[in-house]
C-alpha cells in the first residue's frame, strides 16, 4: 500500500526557508509570488490493511515525521 504524509509548518511559525525561497523567486524575476511556505512529504510503502496502515502512519507522524510543536501533518492512504 502507498501512502503520503504531508508535514507543514503551523501558521505563524517562522519559516526561514520559505522566506529565502520567496526572495530568490523574486530576484529570478518570477512574478506575482506573494509568499512561500515550505513543508515535507514522506512517500511511504506499507504492508497490511488500510485501517492498520492508517494507525501506523498516524503513529509515525506523531512520533517522528512531524514536530507537533511547530508542525501539522496530514495522512493520505493512496491505496
Amino acid at each position, binding site marked *: 500500500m502507498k501512502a503520503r504524509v504531508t508535514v507543514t509548518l503551523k501558521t505563524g511559525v517562522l519559516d526561514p526557508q520559505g522566506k529565502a525561497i520567496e526572495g530568490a523567486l523574486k530576484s529570478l524575476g518570477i512574478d506575482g509570488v506573494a509568499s512561500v511556505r515550505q513543508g515535507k512529504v514522506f512517500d511511504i510503502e506499507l504492508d497490511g490493511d488500510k485501517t492498520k496502515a492508517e494507525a501506523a502512519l498516524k503513529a509515525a507522524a506523531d512520533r517522528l515525521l512531524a514536530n*507537533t510543536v511547530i508542525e501539522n501533518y496530514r495522512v493520505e492512504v493512496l491505496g
Partner: protein
Amino acid sequence: MSRNEPPITPELVASHGLKPDEYERILKLLGRTPTFTELGIFSAMWNEHCSYKSSRIHLRGLPTKAPWVIQGPGENAGVIDIGDGQAVVFKMESHNHPSYIEPYQGATTGVGGILRDVFTMGARPIACLNALSFGDPSHPKTRHLVSGVVAGVGGYGNSFGVPTVGGQVRFHTRYDGNILVNAMAVGLADADKIFYAAASGVNMPIVYLGSKTGRDGIHGATMASAEFDDDSEEKRPTVQVGDPFAEKLLLEACLEIMAKGCVVAIQDMGAAGLTCSAVEMGAKGDLGVDLDLDSVPTRETGMSAYEMMLSESQERMLMVLKPEKEKEAEAIFRKWGLDFAIVGSTTPSRRFVVRHGGDVMADLPIKELESEAPLYDRPHVPSPQLPVIQAREVAPSLTTADALEKLLAMPELCSKRWVWEQYDHVIGGNTVQRPGGDAAVVRVEDGPKGLALTVDVTPRYCEADPFEGGKQAVAEAWRNITAVGGRPLAITDNLNFGNPERPENMGQFVGCLKGIAAACTALDFPVVSGNVSLYNETNGRGILPTPSIGGVGLLDDFTKSASLAFKAEGHPILLIGDTQGWLGQSVYLRDICRREEGAPPPVDLAAERRNGDVVRGMIHAGTATAVHDVSDGGLLVALAEMAMADGIGAVLDAAPAAIVPYAWWFGEDQARYIVTVHERDLLSVFTKLKAVNVPCIQIGLTGGHEIAIAGERAVDLKVLRRGFESWLPDYMAGKP
C-alpha cells in the same frame, strides 16, 4: 487611550506572573489601572529573567573590576582589554526551558541570542562554547533531548559561521525534567569601538533592524521564569524558530554600519523583545522613548500592540542612529536584504510611550520600569554540612585497573566527541587547540596572541557544599586556562538554580555566589557578564545547583600553548599539588561504589594560585612537554586522558604507602596538575618548585602502549580508548 483590550482582572494579572503585591506597586507607581499593553510591559520587565529580582542583591557581592576590565556586568556582554587596542567581548546565557520543550529550536535560539549579545557591542564573534546538562541516560526523553540540542547548537553556530570550540556535557537524574542549555559566545573588537545600549540625544531616530516581527514566543520571558509542571508541554506554540542565515546577515550589516560611524546606541531584542530593548536604551540614556508600532515590520497581519511589544521573534535589533547617516545605514541594510524601519525617537520626557493605530497604548515612566522593579531578599537556609568521607572506610569493589576501564566508559567521563564533531570547530582557521583538551585555544586574528576558553562547574560539589562548589567552579576554569599556558583574565557566569522561593534553593544560590566571589577575588579573575536562570524545577524537585563558569584567558604567543597529549617516550611524569586522597563526592565513589556522598574536596585558593602560576611559568619557559589539570575522576583518569590522546602510555609507580591506592588514583583533591618534562630538566624543576613551596613528585615515565602501574594489571590504551570513545555514540544509537 482607547483600544480593544481586555479589562484588567486579578486572574489576568496572575497569568502575567505578577504577584498581588507587585501589582500594587504598579498601581501606586501609575496612580491608575494599567492598560493591557502596559500590564504586558510590566510583566516582561519585572519577571525574574529581566529584573533579576531574587538574585540582584546577591550579585552585588561579585568582584567585577580589574585594570583590564573595560565593561563589567550590566551591558549586553562583558568587555576586557587584551592589549594592542584589542578587546574581547563575551557572555554566557541559558535557554533551558525552551530547549526542554523543543530541543532543536530551543538550542538554536539560545545560541542566536548570545551571539547577538556579543556583536551588538561591535565585536565579531570568534568562538562559541556550550555547557549542557541532561537527565539520566535511562530517562525516556534524554536521548531525544541530547540529539535535538546538539543538532540545534551546531545548526546555528555552523551556519552562522563561528567555531564552537568547547563545553561540557553531563547527565544526572536531577535534570530529568529540566535540562540546561548554556551557550557562551566570545567576540573580538577594537577597544575604542565598543557600542553600548544607552541612547543619547533628544529627537534621535530609533531604528528597527533585522527580521520581521511575528507572534513568536509571546510570554517566552515569563515562561523562562516559571516552574515546570507536567502540562507545561501545552505551552508549546510559544517556541521561537531561529534563522541563522538572517543572523549572519544581521551581523555583517551591523558591523558595516558601525564601521561607517552610523550608530549612537544599539541593543539587541532578546527576551521580551521590543519592550526590554527600548526601555533599556531610554533608561540607560536618561531619555524618554516614543515608539510608533505602525512602522514595525511585521510578518503576520493584525498584530496588536501587546503582541508586538512582547514578541520574541529572533534576529532583530534596535538602534539609535545618527540622523545624518540615515540614508547610508538604510542602504547597507537593504544590501543585506534586511528590514530597516524608523519606529520611534528619543524624547526629553523620560516616558515610555507606545502608539498604535492612532491610540496611545502605553505611557509609562521609563526609569521606574527598571528602578522600581521588585527586589527580594528571599529567605535562605544554608545547606547541611556533610561528613568527610574517610578513604579507609570505603570498600573498593574493583581493582584499580578495572575501575579505570569502567570509569572511562561511563557517561560522566567518556569522550564527548560525538557532540563536538557535530560542531564546526575549525572554521575561521584560528582554532589552535580543538575540543578534547583542557581549554580551547583560539588564535587572535593572525596572532601571535591567543585566547584560552573554557566552561566549567561540578554541580555535585555545589549541591554538597555550595560555598566550596562555587569556589571550585571558578578554580577549575582558572586551572584549565592555566593548563594550556593562558593567563586567566575574567569570567562570565550562568547561574542555574531551582525555585528561589524555597529557602534551601536560595541557600544554595547564596552559598555558591559567595564561593564564586571568594575565588574570583583570590585569583584576580573578575566577573564581567552573566545570566541567572532560576525556577529550574519540575514537580517540586530542583536541578543540581549549576553555576556554569565561562573563563577567558590570554596567551601572548599561541604557538607556546601546552596540550595534554604525552609527546614522547621517556618523559618523567610529575604530579604538582598536594594529594590526600579526597573521595567525598568523587566520580569514583558515586559511579564505582554507588555512593553519592560526603563533603566535596575543599579548594585552597592560595595553593591554586601558587601551583597554577608555577605550571604556567613552566609552559612559558618551554620546560613542560605536556600539561593536564587533575579534575573529575582524579589522577589516574587524567593520566589516561593524556595517554589516549596520542597513544603514548605511562609506566607508573605504585601509590605511596600513606594513602590507600584507590584514594590516590581516584581522589579529587584540587589544585593539581600533571606535567611532563624532559629528563634533563628534572632536577632544575624540582629545585625551582621547592623554592616556592609547591609540592611536586615524580610518579612515573611516559612510554609503551599501556597504563602500567607497578603491581597492577597493565591496561592497554586501545581497550581504554574503545570504551572511552564508544559510550556516547553507542548510547545515541540506542545500543545500551
